[in-house]
């Protein structure tokens, strides 16, 4: 056994101590033991192939960058709790899939990505207007718009031809053609019930008539207005003359069934019924077509679901995270991801939206253009928790349901105003200051 001299021991020990101290001070593992690992949190995509493609890109990037990129996916309803936990403990993933009010709620925990936004905007023909509305807070860009889901009108060409009517460009025209179509036995359908589509369509119609639910400050109710009255009167007419009472009990899949059954002539929905008809080789696929979401005196507007990415400002791999997103947003990679999602994921950048999956199919050609008039819910206010409460409590469709059920329009609006005020009650301001 080799004996260690006292001098030698001291030398080794002090070296080790200094090394240890600097390691502790830096708060990270020594370089030789560290391989950079980038982590990303996302939802389980409705089209699972999109997640597979994202993971494939992560692997490819890992090889190039000499790092490991891990993509974790969880059920979409669990995301908000995960953001909360990560922001509170200031640890977790580097890149997170956020949306809705999250850029505002986590303003102080999210990295400013303005540079990245400028760079991508210049490279790919600019961001669609909704991008800024859904990710730009008073402090700057706190999110990177990732994709959105189009919400056009879906109609049955055969029924329209038989009735001798054109596709409606405005909601008013929809009422006119709807009257003819219902007489023919093919009513139109917009849900007035507790489902997500009922919210989405109401926002579109209200905005198209120039109305709003909350003022731009996000704290003042704006629902009690002539515009809302007009919208409700329109809904009442449509319900009476162009729809059937079944819309009061619809869920998110009911309008799909309604159009696929061959009975319905027109719905407001993502392209899922058409895709389902194609996938199941239903003959009705040939009769189904899409057209741009209708507008009104206040212009054309729609409220499609918008998805965003954020980078935590406590991430130790912020630069690597941006590099990975640069890689993902490269045209060739983003294209593959769109294809994997079966045209479900619409890009927020103009040049990326120029993709044959839409342009070569005449029934899809108008879809990317829907981005021009898309807004996050609550617009002109920023998305906030009150707006999401208004949505999940179905206040807007309930207001319409009350009115079509016989409650005087004024009273229905007064009811909704009270509910909106309850949703925006003062205590929301304290949110997200952590």
């Amino acid at each position, binding site marked *: 056994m080799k004996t260690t001299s006292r001098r030698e021991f001291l030398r080794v020990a002090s070296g080790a101590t200094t090394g240890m101290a600097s390691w502790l001070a830096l708060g990270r593992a020594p370089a030789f033991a560290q391989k950079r690992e980038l982590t990303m949190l996302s939802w389980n995509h409705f089209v699972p192939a999109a997640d597979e493609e994202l993971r494939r890109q992560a692997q490819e990037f890992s090889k190039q960058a000499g790092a490991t990129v891990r993509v974790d996916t969880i059920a979409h309803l669990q995301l908000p709790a995960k953001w*909360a936990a990560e922001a509170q403990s200031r640890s977790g993933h580097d890149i997170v899939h956020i949306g809705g009010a999250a850029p505002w709620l986590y303003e102080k925990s999210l990295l400013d990505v303005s540079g990245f936004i400028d760079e991508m905007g210049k490279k790919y023909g600019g961001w669609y207007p909704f991008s800024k509305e859904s990710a730009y807070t008073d402090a700057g860009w706190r999110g990177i718009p990732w994709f959105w889901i189009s919400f056009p009108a879906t109609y049955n060409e055969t029924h329209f031809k038989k009735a001798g009517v054109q596709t409606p460009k405005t909601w008013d025209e929809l009422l006119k053609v709807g009257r003819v179509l219902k007489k023919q036995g093919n009513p139109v359908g917009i849900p007035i019930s507790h489902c997500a589509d009922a919210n989405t369509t109401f926002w579109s119609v209200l905005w198209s008539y120039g109305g709003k639910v909350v003022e731009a400050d996000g704290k003042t109710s704006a629902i009690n207005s002539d515009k809302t009255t007009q919208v409700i009167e329109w809904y009442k007419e449509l319900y009476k003359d162009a729809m059937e009472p079944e819309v009061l009990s619809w869920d998110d899949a009911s309008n799909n069934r*309604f159009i696929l059954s061959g009975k319905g002539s027109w719905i407001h929905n993502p392209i899922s019924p058409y895709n389902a008809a194609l996938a199941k080789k239903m003959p009705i696929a040939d009769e189904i077509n899409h057209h741009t979401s209708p507008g009104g005196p206040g212009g054309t507007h729609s409220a499609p679901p918008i998805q965003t990415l954020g980078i935590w400002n406590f991430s130790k791999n912020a630069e690597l995270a941006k590099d990975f997103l640069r890689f993902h947003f490269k045209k060739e990679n983003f294209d593959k991801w769109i294809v994997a999602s079966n045209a479900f994921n619409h890009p927020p950048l103009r040049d990326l939206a120029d993709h044959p999956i839409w342009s070569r199919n005449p029934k899809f050609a108008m879809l990317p253009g829907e981005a021009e008039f898309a807004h996050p819910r609550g617009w002109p206010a920023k998305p906030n928790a009150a707006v999401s409460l208004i949505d999940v409590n179905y206040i807007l469709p*309930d207001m319409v349901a009350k009115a079509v059920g016989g409650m005087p329009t004024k009273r229905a609006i007064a009811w909704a105003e009270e509910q909106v005020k309850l949703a925006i009650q003062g205590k929301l301001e304290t949110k997200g200051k952590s």
Partner: protein
Amino acid sequence: MAVGQRAIEAAGTGVARPGPLARAREWWEQEHVFGYGLILPALLLIVCLVAYPFGMAIYFSLSDYWVGSPGNFVGLENFRDILGNEVFQRTVYNSFVFTSIAVAFKIVLGVWLAMLLFRNFKLKRLIRGAVLLPWVIPTALSTLAWWWMFDSLYSVVNWTAIRLGIISPPGPNWLGMTEYAMAAVIAVNVWRGLPFFAIIVLAGLVSIPREYYEAAEVDGASSWGRFRHVTLPLLKPVLAVVILFSTIFTFSDFNIVYVMTRGGPVNTTHLFATLAYQVGLNGGNLGQGAAISLFLFPMLAAVVFLQLRYIRKE
């Protein structure tokens, strides 16, 4: 000290000192240690799965806790807010209508079904087992089937009724009209809860001695008289327990309403659990959500208290 003393005695009498294993066993086998040891797993489960969430719910209900942000203590503000909200008031009303009608149907039909099952007939065991099916299948699944039967476009219920000439086409839009939607969710709740009721009542029936019936027959009691004066009084304790359970289950129902109507049309079928879920989890307002669900607690506590007192008196 018992262990120590025994050890000394053992040493004194010259017997070998017990090993550590034996001593541990001796300690374990003492009544107060062993008894609590047996309860411990159950206690841990209750603390972790019942007491802790309950405590958290109380804490949440007194704070403005939102998903994603630490809350501040706000006292009873949440309770004040929801009490003043029309949607919550409607929910309270719905819950009472739903529970009272559903439980009433379950009592009448449950006793009736139990009497039928009590008789001797072919395949008695098989049918008694089959009757339990609605209770056994996962509610979310069976309710989906019901939801489909009440669907606006493909309603089997309407199709059958129209073919039988009971109603005129197109028939009611079950889940889109206030009274019909409530009737639909109550019907499904009764369908689901009935077997539980019937089987427990059946157990009660089996335990009634035959002699009473024979004596009643000798006295010339009619079948209604036998039911009224023999069966019913002797079933009372069992009925009280089963009504107690059924009331609790019905009051706190979630699946049926959530799957079939999501509280619609216009909140006319919302129950405490579905509204709490909508506000607390979907809306992220944990404070109010917790406050809504806590409203169940005093009401159920009152039901339990009254029922238990009644049972004890009996």
